[in-house]
């Protein structure tokens, strides 16, 4: 811990700013990926339940499930774009 503090003190202001931006971007991307992960899990779980109960409706359920997955994933992509713009 002391070595880390020593290392941080040796960084100049520009490096510190870049390091802060990178770590903030990493946190933002990680947080942005959690929500869609929960959403996709819930969505696919319910879809599997529906297909298991009513296999004859599987085609319709799979179509809407796939579009739902893609829409949910868009949230993670927005987080990723923020990450590449401010931190990469």
């Amino acid at each position, binding site marked *: 811990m002391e070595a880390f503090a020593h290392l941080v003190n040796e960084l100049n202001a520009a490096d510190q700013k870049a390091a802060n931006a990178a770590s903030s971007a990493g946190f933002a991307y990680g947080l942005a*990926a959690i929500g*869609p*992960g929960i959403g*996709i*899990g819930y969505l*696919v*779980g319910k879809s*599997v*339940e529906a*297909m*298991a*109960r009513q*296999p004859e409706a*599987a*085609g*319709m359920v*799979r*179509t*809407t*499930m*796939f*579009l739902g*997955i*893609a*829409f949910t*994933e*868009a949230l*993670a*992509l*927005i987080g*990723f*774009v923020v990450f*590449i*713009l401010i931190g*990469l």
Partner: protein
Amino acid sequence: MNDLSASAITTSLQGPAPEVGVTKDMVRRGLIVAPLIIAVCGVIWGMNGAYSSAYGIVIVLVNFALAATLVAVTARISLGLMMGAVLFGYLVRLGLIFLAVLLVKDSGWISLPALGATIIVTHLGLLVWEMKYVALSLAHPGLKPSRP
């Protein structure tokens, strides 16, 4: 283990895969609108923007194709496997997109704002376009709109 979880693990779905058809539609539409998106990015960010925009469109279309392939292949084996594959596939595809951007981020031809804008606009635009088609097909099969 109750009956529903047992059937979710053992049930497999044979026959045509609708997500493959949806993805083929989106890829075809993506290729149709690609010149327009590339031109707009070229006007705003210059040649680097045009190259980055083309790269972003490829990333989005490959991402859709991977997702559809994963669902189509695993649904033929078991619904439980499909659920696991979709969840891990989500992580893997995010990792692949990250890798694809990481590989080119220091290249001279890349424009990150153009790449980011293209990824978001293409992804959402193609989904909304397909959603309109799918919603009309499901609600009014007799009025199925013609494909582009």
